[in-house]
């Protein structure tokens, strides 16, 4: 592999590293808000792989660009839902805690 080809892969490789890093964060971090941040890092990595591999002579293929924009919007929508669930759960725990001083567990 020559230097020039490996540099052509620089961004997608960075994306791959971000995916791995984010995945490690998702597994090893306990707080859901941090896990949500980790998921966003994974997503950014995936987009960088997709976009970086669409790089041609001078311009980047508009097709992956459009897919990435769709992906970014979907991921912010999901992040917002996750953040709302996390805060609502904390509110419920707080309300339950003041009532019974026990964390709420609804598993079977």
């Amino acid at each position, binding site marked *: 592999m020559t230097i020039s080809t490996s540099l052509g892969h620089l961004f*997608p490789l960075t994306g791959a590293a971000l*995916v791995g890093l984010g995945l490690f964060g*998702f597994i090893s971090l306990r707080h*859901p808000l941090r*896990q*949500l941040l980790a*998921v966003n890092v*994974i*997503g950014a990595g*995936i*987009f960088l*792989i*997709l976009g970086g*591999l*669409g790089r041609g002579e001078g311009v980047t293929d508009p*097709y*992956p660009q459009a*897919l990435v924009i*769709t*992906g970014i919007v*979907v991921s912010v*929508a*999901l992040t917002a*839902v*996750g953040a709302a*669930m*996390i805060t*609502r*759960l904390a509110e*419920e725990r707080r309300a339950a805690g003041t009532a019974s001083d026990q964390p*709420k*567990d*609804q*598993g*079977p």
Partner: protein
Amino acid sequence: MSPLDLLVAAPLAFMVASLVVGRGGRWLILAASPAMLALSAWLVALPPDAAHLVGDWELPLGILLRADGVARLLVPATSLCFVAVGLYAWHEFSPKSGRETARAHTFWPLLYLMWGGSNAGYLTTDLFNLYVTIEMVSLAAVAMAAMGSLAAGLQYFLIALVGSLAYLLGVALLAAHYDTVDATLLAIHARPDLPTLLAITVMTAGLLVKTALFPLHGWLPPAHAAAPAPASALLSAVVVKLGFVIILRLWFEAFAEVVRPAAMHLLGGMGALAILYGSIQAIRQERLKSLVAYSTVAQLGYLFLAFPLISNAPNPAEPWAAVLVHAVAHMLAKAAMFLAAGLMLKAVAGERISDLAGLARAMPLSVTAFALAAISLTGLPPSGGFTAKFLLLHAAIEQGSVVYAAVLVIGGLLGAVYLFRPLSVACSGSAAPVVKAEAPLRVAAPLALAALAVALGFAGMMLIELSSLSAPPAAAGPLPAEPGR
């Protein structure tokens, strides 16, 4: 106009309408039900090769919509589930004593979003488009699961999120590698190289998490058991099927030439373990809805047990039909079972199986619905479940797969054990508990679904014909598969 577009556009239009109408949103189901059932019937009646490009933009760039056998079976079944659930939920998700709750209001747009999303998923062949539809369905599913238990909903959300990202990673690799993400084109171009294999692996893993195949099922029982009955019905019947159908598309269409038999057996083995583990867990449950949720874990196993049977079969059309009939039968039966369980538990104001004592006398119709659904789930004749399991067993014996055959038989027996228990409790005792009469619509919805699940057995030939519209070519010879007559 074509039902391929309208089956997606109509639910989305109803979603918009329910948001604009506000308080009266629930009434829209009365218009949506006949419209969607008619569109589903139109889809089934389309000529065999019906397909078109959205906006007439050619592949590899554009998006192809197609009415294959999978869509023709699953779209009508999905519509039936949504109609029944919608009519059942009509009372439950309505303004209470003049006050409207967030839940009663948002349930309806979420229902339509899920409806449009799953139809879009069954009809498209574009893998990135499928990613968007997965998110439509997951989003609605997570919100519905959170209506029961926020903690279980959050757990489901995070797992579903990683599952969709894994799928998206695979799509990104494929898009970069082949400059297309259309399943029909990938079927021609796919090569067994590292990016392709990695893409298939991560996509399958992500979808398996969402489909909750053992041992990735951990999130399912708490989320499905805690949700309100209509939401549980949709989660267990409809939502998990989309992931399964996409895996089916990937393994038997887009990458049929790439996937190795060993991988088929891996999935089959996971399916077998899911059947055994889910059934045993279901037997051990004390709460009715947890039992039904673990039964979903077990029943999903059958869908994947079929993978090696399809790929090894001299005539794959038979196990192929079996797996699709099973998906349809499970959809109807499981939705019916959750709805009936919801009625029964509400009547006794409890959640344990032991609370049901004597209920068969007090609410015979709901217990009948539960029993009919149980007949289909255990695979007793003449139900749809029987047709499916019989075909699978036949394929397993024909191929000499003793292990799979044994799992199929044992799974049926265990299913009978765990489903017989709540029924025997309901029929026990001499005194009937006094219960409040339910609205006729709420009683009729699960009964109709369960009756349909049983009646599917009589329509076996028609279903097999339909499924053959997308059966994989026979592994043994180049001849196109004939439906198993």
